[in-house]
């Protein structure tokens, strides 16, 4: 058996160390977890996301105390009880609503940072894949949460999205009814999406966050030049006190202090939205209670789903579903479609530079078109942008295999 000092005071540092190895844990997880020096503020987005998830969790816990998952009372429990009766109930709701929207903005920044700097390449594929799984589970979390206020947008988004599972001409109505537990979204539907939103999806998300951190450990965080250097050598220099010569800094306290600075700026922006501009995350249509006999004149998803919605919309049902399916999974395949061995910022990678900016602009165009009614010129621009999206992904393996080795 290990040695336990009988004179150590209970819960003293020594006592804990003998039982939990807290010094080793601290060293491995933070003070000797090495981060490259050559990074910029975009490398703080991971911790910004973790903090935003924390805010969503805390505000969600308070909302859960008064929310009622019942088709007759859900709408009032949110819009009346929480908003005007519960002390500071509005604060939790606005944090939760704004957080759900902003978390996607940061996810997109985080993703495109990874694409720009090639942080998904050899050795880092699992970072990318676990990150994309997080994107998918966050999407499911956002969708299931959107059902809960049981307003018009909740109901009709639920109707449209669950109908996707009928698979177009496959006409799999049985599957759709199974998912809903009814012919149309109703009590069974609201209750099971409530369960998904408050328990199952958050559990999966927390598990995936742990995995995502784990995948970073061995390949290490990428840097601004995609430089591959000896972390052990750099760490040795740092520990010897040659901080200037070393290419790394420890996670705690050095990197964390940069992170906290970026988070500080971010939270000013975040709470400005929570207190003064929360309405952008609160669609007015969803302040009408759900009505199964009336579709709102325009239905559209939240801004973060608009690009993939616009890929579905311009095509007839079956090709539309195939296109939509393609858009949902194609980002997962990025590490395998990029055939170039270069780990470098897009600006140094020839044609890939144009590919990156074209993809970003195309997704912004798709986002705008998704919000506009599907008529006239908007339909045409949407269709072209959707086709261009496919062209880009088909072109990716070709242009990257022709890329010169740096």
């Amino acid at each position: 058996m290990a040695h336990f000092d009988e004179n150590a005071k209970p819960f003293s540092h020594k006592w804990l160390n003998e039982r939990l190895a807290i010094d080793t844990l601290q060293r491995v997880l933070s003070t000797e977890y090495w981060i490259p020096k050559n990074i910029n503020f975009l490398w703080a987005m991971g911790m910004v996301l973790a903090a935003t998830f924390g805010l969503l969790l805390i505000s969600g816990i308070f909302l859960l105390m008064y929310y009622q998952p019942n088709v007759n009372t859900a709408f009032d429990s949110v819009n009346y009880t929480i908003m005007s009766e519960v002390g500071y109930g509005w604060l939790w709701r606005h944090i939760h609503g704004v957080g759900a929207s902003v978390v996607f903005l940061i996810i997109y920044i985080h993703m495109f940072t990874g694409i720009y700097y090639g942080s998904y390449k050899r050795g880092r594929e699992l970072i990318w894949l676990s990150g994309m799984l997080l994107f998918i589970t966050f999407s499911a979390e956002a969708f299931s949460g959107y059902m809960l206020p049981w307003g018009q947008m909740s109901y009709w988004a639920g109707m449209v999205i669950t109908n996707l599972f009928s698979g177009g001409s496959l006409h799999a109505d049985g599957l759709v009814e199974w998912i809903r537990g009814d012919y149309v979204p109703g009590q069974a539907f609201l209750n099971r999406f409530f369960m998904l939103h408050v328990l199952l999806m958050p559990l999966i998300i927390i598990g995936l966050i742990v995995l995502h951190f784990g995948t970073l450990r061995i390949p290490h965080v990428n840097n601004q030049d995609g430089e591959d250097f000896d972390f052990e050598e750099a760490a040795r220099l740092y520990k010897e006190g040659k901080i200037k010569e070393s290419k790394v800094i420890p996670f705690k306290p050095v990197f964390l202090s940069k992170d906290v600075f970026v988070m500080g700026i971010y939270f000013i922006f975040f709470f400005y939205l929570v207190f003064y501009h929360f309405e952008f995350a609160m669609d007015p249509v969803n302040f009408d209670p759900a009505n199964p006999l009336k579709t709102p004149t325009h239905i559209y998803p939240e801004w973060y789903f608009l690009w993939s919605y616009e890929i579905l919309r311009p095509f007839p049902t079956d090709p539309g579903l195939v296109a939509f399916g393609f858009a949902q999974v194609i980002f997962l395949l990025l590490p395998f479609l990029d055939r170039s061995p270069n780990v470098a910022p897009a600006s140094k990678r020839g044609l890939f530079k144009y590919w990156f900016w074209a993809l970003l602009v195309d997704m912004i165009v798709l986002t705008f078109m998704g919000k506009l009614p599907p008529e006239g010129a908007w339909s045409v621009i949407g269709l072209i942008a959707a086709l261009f999206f496919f062209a880009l992904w088909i072109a990716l393996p070709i242009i990257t295999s022709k890329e010169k080795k740096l």
Partner: protein
Amino acid sequence: MANNTKGRRDFIGMALGGFTALGGIGALYAAKRTWDPLPSVKAAGFTTLDLSNVPEGVLITEKWRGKPIFILRQTKDMMSKVSKKDMKRLIKIGDDHFMVAVGLCTHLGCIPGYRPETQDFLCACHGGMYNSTADVTKAPPPRGLDIPPFKIDGKKLVLGEQGPEYKKMLEDGTTLPV
């Protein structure tokens, strides 16, 4: 591990694995059944519609199994424009022709809006269009609005029951089963 215990350990491993798999499959089946619609939901029965006082050219919306049902008694003007194929979609009661359909777009299930001035339906979600017999005229919807199972009973219509006229529609592909 000694060689002479390998066979026994393999056996125990396989037996454990087998029973675990069996329990797992059982649990999955139970989970699937838990997500099934409840019998009370499934039994949500039949709706009888009285069509004797339905005005011409005015869209009436009823409810069946939680879904909106469109009823549109065709005007003379509409009847003159109906193609031979679309005639099959209409339900004839006495001398009147009725369009009766589930008012959910066959694309993704929004409720199309009726436009009296053009006598057609426009789905605001993705721009699909239907004529006065609820047959599709503009994609993305893959087909006209589905017709619910019905049985003609004098001037009344029983939704949920399959009469001979409905069975004929199913056979010649005028509608898909709902």
